[in-house]
């Protein structure tokens, strides 16, 4: 296993000049719609002074790119974008001096004034609209079979006996595969594999009840919180909750595996090509160097591809049958077998002094494990399941405790991890305190932060949305929320909603001021912000994964509605305010974080109803009205 080192990155691993004058760029990050291929190409093209279309970007192919831990945390531009910028600056100098492109990439290269190209807005766009783009499930190899997996009725159940006489005799079936706890069928056509797997007769051994215990991890432990709360003239306690939701990718998980005695090549949607390579090698009994992972787009998955489920299954099927296998999960499998975003119950109590300054704050976050590791590393927990649990305000007495509890459902990573739940609770509570004090929630926030960048996004979004002169009542309301995302992106948002007499919440306009440091690709930033807002509004208003005793009841989009075209806001205003001198901080996750609170606060402004449990359904609004 290759381990990451702290050695400086090497130019020859990052940039190569081709004989035809084109430039090839290498990065271990992967593209799944967030636009990093385009941003990387523009960064290198600008520094080298070549047209963007002369730059080829190779992403994540473990046989070609340097080691990378994975694509998560909105860190691609901050990490690899910066390395490539410095690499290209060095390359330009070496080319001018007629020297080969090799050597350590220095870590202190000033940002040049070179303006990045505006076009193309997305490098993959022309291929996507013409049907030339190749997603994972579009890979076609010689002799390739199609797979289907028999799914246990309960997570963790194991096949005791497998009756396969009927399935084996069915048209197109090549083999029934049994590999430890995996039972599947490979067939010439997908429909044949899917039908045959239903014909298997399997007795399942139920798993023992999980004996995980809850783990409590203190994140902030100031003394005197209880005393300060007791002495606060304004003091509010509230409990907020969010259900399990699905990452709900439009394209279900897929992988193509070609496994031979001497090595394996696997095409997969993955955020961790090197981690997946190591898992595949262990599963297949091959040396790490004999496994190549080639990441292709599986569709956007928003954290779901931190886990390589389909790739590992496809590889086992392929090894067993000796032919390449394409495995594409069904929609039902994606809902039932894919990991869910954890559920949470969030208890906050906070107080202010007579001047409206926070005096004390106690927060207990009860949730499940976020992240792909399965078990929780307590040292990492404040950055995963406890992400953004600390409010971005000055609080003299602060106690924040993360309680990670066993989950009936398999949980993993959803965009922004726990930041979205924590900021929903924090920013809802701030709104409740402002209401109790009969003051403008913008003033309460500004009074309680000295951070000039947080103040700047708050003031900017207020000005652009006309916050001070906003219309009030008449079933229409404006809601404000903000966040300083884990790694330093500042966001403030205003949502406009109308609430119908039946309790239905509709989005009107939406404003977002974002400071992500230096902006590399303005259109890319806007597209990420708009998408994150629409997606978060979807789970705020609509989404809940229905489950009973750990068994997911959701099977299709009919029982798991997401926001559609008619549900989209009427307009989204994205205001970019990153300073050129600040390092870039990333925008994949942060813009989705304050959305739920902005909408909940707007619902309160519209009709006086405080909904503390998501999704904000008409039923919940009506119930809270009574």
């Amino acid at each position: 296993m290759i381990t990451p080192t702290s050695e400086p990155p090497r130019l020859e691993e990052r940039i190569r000049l081709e004989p035809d004058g084109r430039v090839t760029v290498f990065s271990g990050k992967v593209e799944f719609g967030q636009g990093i291929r385009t941003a990387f190409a523009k960064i290198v093209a600008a520094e080298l002074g070549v047209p963007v279309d002369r730059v080829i970007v190779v992403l994540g192919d473990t046989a070609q790119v340097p080691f990378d831990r994975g694509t998560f945390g909105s860190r691609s531009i901050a990490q690899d974008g910066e390395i490539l910028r410095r690499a290209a600056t060095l390359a330009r100098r070496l080319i001018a001096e007629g020297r080969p492109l090799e050597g350590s990439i220095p870590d202190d290269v000033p940002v040049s004034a070179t303006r990045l190209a505006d076009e193309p807005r997305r490098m993959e766009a022309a291929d996507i609209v013409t049907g030339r783009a190749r997603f994972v499930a579009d890979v076609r190899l010689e002799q390739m079979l199609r797979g289907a997996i028999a799914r246990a009725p309960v997570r963790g159940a194991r096949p005791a006996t497998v009756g396969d006489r009927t399935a084996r005799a069915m048209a197109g079936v090549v083999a029934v595969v049994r590999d430890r706890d995996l039972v599947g069928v490979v067939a010439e056509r997908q429909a044949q594999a899917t039908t045959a797997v239903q014909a298997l007769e399997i007795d399942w051994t139920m798993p023992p009840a999980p004996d995980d215990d809850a783990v409590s991890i203190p994140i902030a432990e100031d003394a005197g919180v209880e005393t300060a709360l007791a002495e606060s003239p304004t003091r509010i306690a509230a409990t907020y909750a969010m259900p399990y939701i699905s990452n709900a990718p439009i394209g279900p998980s897929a992988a193509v595996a070609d496994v031979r005695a001497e090595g394996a090549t696997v095409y997969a949607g993955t955020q961790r090509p090197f981690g997946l390579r190591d898992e595949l090698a262990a599963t297949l009994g091959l040396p790490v160097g004999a496994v190549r992972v080639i990441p292709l787009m599986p569709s956007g998955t928003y954290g779901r591809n931190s886990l390589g489920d389909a790739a590992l299954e496809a590889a086992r099927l392929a090894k067993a049958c000796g032919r390449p296998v394409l495995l594409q999960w069904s929609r039902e499998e994606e809902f039932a077998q894919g990991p869910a975003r954890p559920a949470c119950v969030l208890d906050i109590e906070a107080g202010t002094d007579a001047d409206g300054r926070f005096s004390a704050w106690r927060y207990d976050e009860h949730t499940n494990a976020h992240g792909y590791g399965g078990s929780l590393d307590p040292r990492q927990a404040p950055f995963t399941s406890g992400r953004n649990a600390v409010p971005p305000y000055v609080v003299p007495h602060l106690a924040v405790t993360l309680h990670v509890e066993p989950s009936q459902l398999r949980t993993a990573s959803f965009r922004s991890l726990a930041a979205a739940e924590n900021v929903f609770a924090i920013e809802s509570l701030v709104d409740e305190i402002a209401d109790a004090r009969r003051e403008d929630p913008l003033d309460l926030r500004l009074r309680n932060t000295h951070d000039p960048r947080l103040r700047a996004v708050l003031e900017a979004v207020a000005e652009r949305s006309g916050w001070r002169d906003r219309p009030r009542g008449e079933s229409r309301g404006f809601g404000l929320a903000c966040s300083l995302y884990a790694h330093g992106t500042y966001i403030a948002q205003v949502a406009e909603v109308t609430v119908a007499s039946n309790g239905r919440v509709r989005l009107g306009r939406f404003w977002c001021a974002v400071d992500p440091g230096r902006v590399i690709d303005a259109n890319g930033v806007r597209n990420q912000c708009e998408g994150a807002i629409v997606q978060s509004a979807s789970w705020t208003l609509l989404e809940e994964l229905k489950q009973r005793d750990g068994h997911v009841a959701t099977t299709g989009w009919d029982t798991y509605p997401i926001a559609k075209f008619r549900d989209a806001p009427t307009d989204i205003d994205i205001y970019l305010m990153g300073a050129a001198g600040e390092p870039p901080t990333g925008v994949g996750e942060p813009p989705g974080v304050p959305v739920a609170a902005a909408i909940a606060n707007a619902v309160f402004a519209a009709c006086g109803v405080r909904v503390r449990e998501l999704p904000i359904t008409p039923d919940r609004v009506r119930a809270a009205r009574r």
Partner: protein
Amino acid sequence: MKHRLDVNGVSREIDVPRETSLLEALRDDLGLVAARYGCGRGQCGACFVLADGRAVASCLITVGQATVYRIVTVEGLASAGWDAVQRAFVEEDAMQCGYCTSGMLISATALLAQQPSPTDDEIRDALDPNLCRCGVQLRAIRAVRRAAEARG
């Protein structure tokens, strides 16, 4: 079982099991992968194709049923005279992952064939069957408007 399909202006014969869906035939027998599997129940729009100009879920109709239609997939949009729709989606960058884009292009084309200058509400209604989890709806609406203007 042999079937003759009219796809993108070309008559093509395939030999597939009777119950084969049009989606499976396009992707696995004709090499046309722009229509994508999303749900298999006609609930997401990722597999939409034009059947005599109407947007239909190719996962829900069998190859046998499809033989009576002129089928157009995204691969055939340009030669069918609808490249303005494709260009507009590129120019508005109305995509992120791109998995649902084919279906949106098909719905947009079907709309513009019926209604050359649609209102924003008509565009929302026409594309409502197309689920997009990345959240590019507002860009797609602008793209359809731009395509309508480009076609005059």
